[in-house]
């Protein structure tokens, strides 16, 4: 059952994620839906994912070339989704949890100040497996918490750690993205150094819908 509680028109959407490709499986369909309905989407990607282990299959990247390759893959993924406002914030992969908090929170707060988003998408701190994911979500939550309550955007978070639903409960937002699975598949395929998914090329609309037709989010509660 899909409970599509979101409004997709007239929104200012800010996405804050640490790695190129974090958008693909989690939120790309919803972003395409916002854009189709005339909303604005800004994607702030904190790092270039320069410490990733995947180097393409067959191998075509190395530690030296990977950042530039992933930058281009990210740009391609954004084109596939329709995102025109991509911000690469220049942090280093794997270091977000150790980053100077003033610098990190300052960068995110500056974006919130500039864009005045109605909704922010990020990872659910503590339930998103990769330390960069958790630290990114935690930084967003800190920045939003610091705003006066009436100025706080809605924060929708992605969680996928083992057993997270037993603790968080089921996701309160399920977005029907069946009309946007082509964009989603193209976003995934953009990240050639990270994902090898030859089966997506010949997948039918129906296959894509059953695999990717729903995206799930938890709304972060603020006091």
């Amino acid at each position, binding site marked *: 059952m899909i409970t599509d509680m979101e409004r997709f028109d007239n929104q200012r959407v800010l996405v804050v994620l640490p790695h190129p490709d974090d958008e693909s499986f989690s939120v790309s369909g919803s972003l395409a839906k916002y854009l189709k309905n005339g909303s604005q989407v800004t994607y702030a990607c904190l790092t270039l994912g320069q410490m990733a282990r*995947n180097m*393409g299959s067959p*191998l075509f990247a190395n*530690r*030296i070339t990977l*950042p530039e390759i992933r930058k281009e893959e990210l740009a391609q993924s954004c084109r596939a989704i329709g995102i025109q406002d991509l911000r690469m914030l220049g942090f280093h992969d794997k270091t977000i949890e150790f980053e100077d908090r003033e610098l990190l929170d300052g960068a995110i707060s500056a974006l919130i100040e500039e864009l005045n988003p109605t909704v922010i998408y990020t990872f659910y701190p503590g339930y998103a497996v990769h330390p960069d994911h958790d630290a990114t979500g935690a930084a967003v939550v800190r920045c939003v918490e610091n705003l006066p309550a009436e100025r706080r955007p809605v924060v929708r978070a992605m969680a996928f*750690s*083992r057993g997270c639903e037993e603790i968080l409960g089921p996701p309160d937002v399920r977005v029907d993205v069946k009309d946007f699975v082509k964009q989603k598949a193209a976003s995934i395929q953009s990240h050639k150094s990270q994902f090898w998914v030859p089966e997506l090329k010949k997948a039918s609309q129906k296959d894509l819908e059953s695999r990717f037709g729903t995206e799930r989010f938890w709304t972060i509660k603020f006091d």
Partner: protein
Amino acid sequence: MLPIDLEYIQQRIDQMKDQDLYIHLELTNGAYAAHNDASRHPAANFIKNAVIRYAHGGISGVSPYYRVGLKMEHGWIYSEGLTHYEETENDRLIMAGHDKDGKLVVALQLSPYPFE
């Protein structure tokens, strides 16, 4: 990248001795190791752009896995599991070890100027 050529890498190591070098040394089994298989221990480390200088160094091992040891004035740099080197790099020595799925496990890189 190409599979390591032991004699060629030994030459490169010899050429780079006795000078200040930036090092990138890394070992990882991936941030998702324990998420994908709870019995696995997630471990990783890297050091990037520390400046080192070695007086002599060597490469040893049997294809496909090689070991490199570099002796410094006060200690050692050691790396095991290297499988590939980057053939297009002339100033820098770029080596890595990839597992059977092509994922990077280990990296040892030396350069006269900092890594980005």
